[in-house]
């Protein structure tokens, strides 16, 4: 698996660095230059989402150069390639997140301080967003390559439109009620289990989601024709 990670890093190094700089730059603009800063958790979630898209670069570049066949003709199982992609994706997203949080919080005139971003709330938000985004995104890009990113984005847009339609038909108050009930359910679960156990439970759920995503990705990549 390490050979696959090393290969992806060597072949995508420059573009990954460039994208990290661009994504971090956008977050710096939000954190420093916007007159009104978003709430810390919202900023953390946004940062998590951006960092989750970093690993997509390796697969989309492979598509651009029709190089998936190169990786799959090497002496390595496709399952191992998928596992390496997951490890690299999570690792890159986490490194990008920590680096961005550090940079943003250390910059003069930033709306956020180190203690704000490296607090449990923003970190849990960012990690949750990363885990969910990667879990949903990776099966698409491993199966469909560059088109997978587009399919994912279009699918989420369509889903958003559908939700908005449902909300507008059912009425705003009812929507607020449903969201309120979900939040209340989480709060009650947290009260019942205690903060530590709740965090552990959430981590286990996210880990299970990533594992499920890996199993689906391995299955679809195994059957991908090159």
């Amino acid at each position: 698996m390490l050979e696959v990670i090393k290969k992806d890093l060597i072949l995508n190094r420059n573009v990954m660095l460039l994208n990290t700089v661009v994504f971090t730059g956008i977050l710096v603009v939000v954190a420093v230059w916007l007159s009104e800063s978003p709430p810390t958790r919202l900023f953390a979630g946004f940062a998590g989402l951006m960092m989750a898209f970093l690993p997509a670069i390796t697969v989309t570049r492979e598509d651009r150069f029709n190089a998936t066949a190169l990786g799959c003709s090497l002496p390595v199982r496709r399952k191992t390639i998928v596992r390496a992609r997951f490890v690299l994706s999570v690792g890159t997203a986490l490194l990008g997140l920590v680096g961005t949080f550090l940079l943003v919080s250390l910059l003069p005139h930033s709306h956020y301080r180190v203690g704000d971003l490296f607090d449990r709330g923003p970190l849990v938000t960012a990690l949750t967003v990363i885990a969910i985004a990667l879990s949903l995104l990776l099966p698409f890009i491993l199966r469909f390559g560059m088109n997978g990113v587009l399919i994912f984005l279009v699918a989420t847009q369509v889903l958003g439109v559908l939700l908005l339609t449902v909300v507008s038909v059912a009425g705003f108050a009812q929507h607020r009620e449903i969201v309120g009930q979900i939040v209340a359910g989480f709060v009650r679960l947290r009260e019942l289990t205690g903060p530590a156990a709740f965090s552990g439970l959430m981590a286990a759920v996210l880990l299970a989601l990533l594992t499920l995503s890996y199993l689906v990705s391995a299955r679809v990549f195994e059957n991908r024709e090159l």
Partner: protein
Amino acid sequence: MNETTAGLTDAAWTGTEVPMGDFEANPLAISVANLRKRYPDFLLKDVSFSLPQGYVMGLVGPNGAGKTTIIKLIMNLIRPDGGRIELFGLDHRAHEEEVKRRIGFVYDVPPFYGDVSLRDTKRAIAPFYPAWNETLFNELVGQFELPIKKKVKTLSKGMRTKFALALALSHDADLLVLDEPTTGLDPVFRRELLHGLSGILQDQAKSILFSTHITTDLERIADFVTFIRDGEVILSASREELLDTWGVVRGDEAALAAIDPATRHGSRRHAHGADVLTSDAAAARAACGDSVVVDPASLEDIVVLLEGRKKEEHA
């Protein structure tokens, strides 16, 4: 006599010094049985052939015949709908890593990252092969005059193929799988390459599967030839079998009618009569007598005349 019409004479088959005749005793490098693959507009039909270790097999056929599909199936890049592939006696999927470590693969269009240098591409690929030989790679880079610091996108198609060959030859592969490797190469390098491949076969454990539509390449190095057309194996035979039994019978059409239809595999009309491809040249000579000329069949004759049969069938 030029190479395309020279026929399968011993002089044309200078590629290997491995003695033919004892190949049946060798373990198999490739064994393909009843391989099937269906696409909406193409069907690979129950393809079977085998290649003993230490020999070269040429996969030959017109564009779109199914050569690349067979190679992709062997490399596990696409899934078969049926059949079995064994490499070195092992199932190619169950033992994927083990068998691929022993294969050097050259693609018809080498799929490298255009914006990465040759050196970095090598750095990314070499760790996958425990038997990687850096000294040999550097020698090949020098021999092929590859600009190792330049990006892949600056290379011509021929240079990319040379780079792919350098990678494939640098890890002591027991089997080289080459998909149209000579396409896009200049004649001088093509000749050098074929000579180099012959050299590899001095090690009797090495084997080569070589797909091409340039039949003269195969005449230089192949020990076995498998003809593919429309997804079907039309013929898979050793050089000896082709030399001993196949031939082109030339004469007027009335005389050629005496050839047994079961051994007749295609024909071509021309101003002076016709040429008929036969799988039993001796029987055809006996049947037609002195009114015809029987020549050994070159690979080009076989490809062209088999295509002639296809046209006859369609007509």
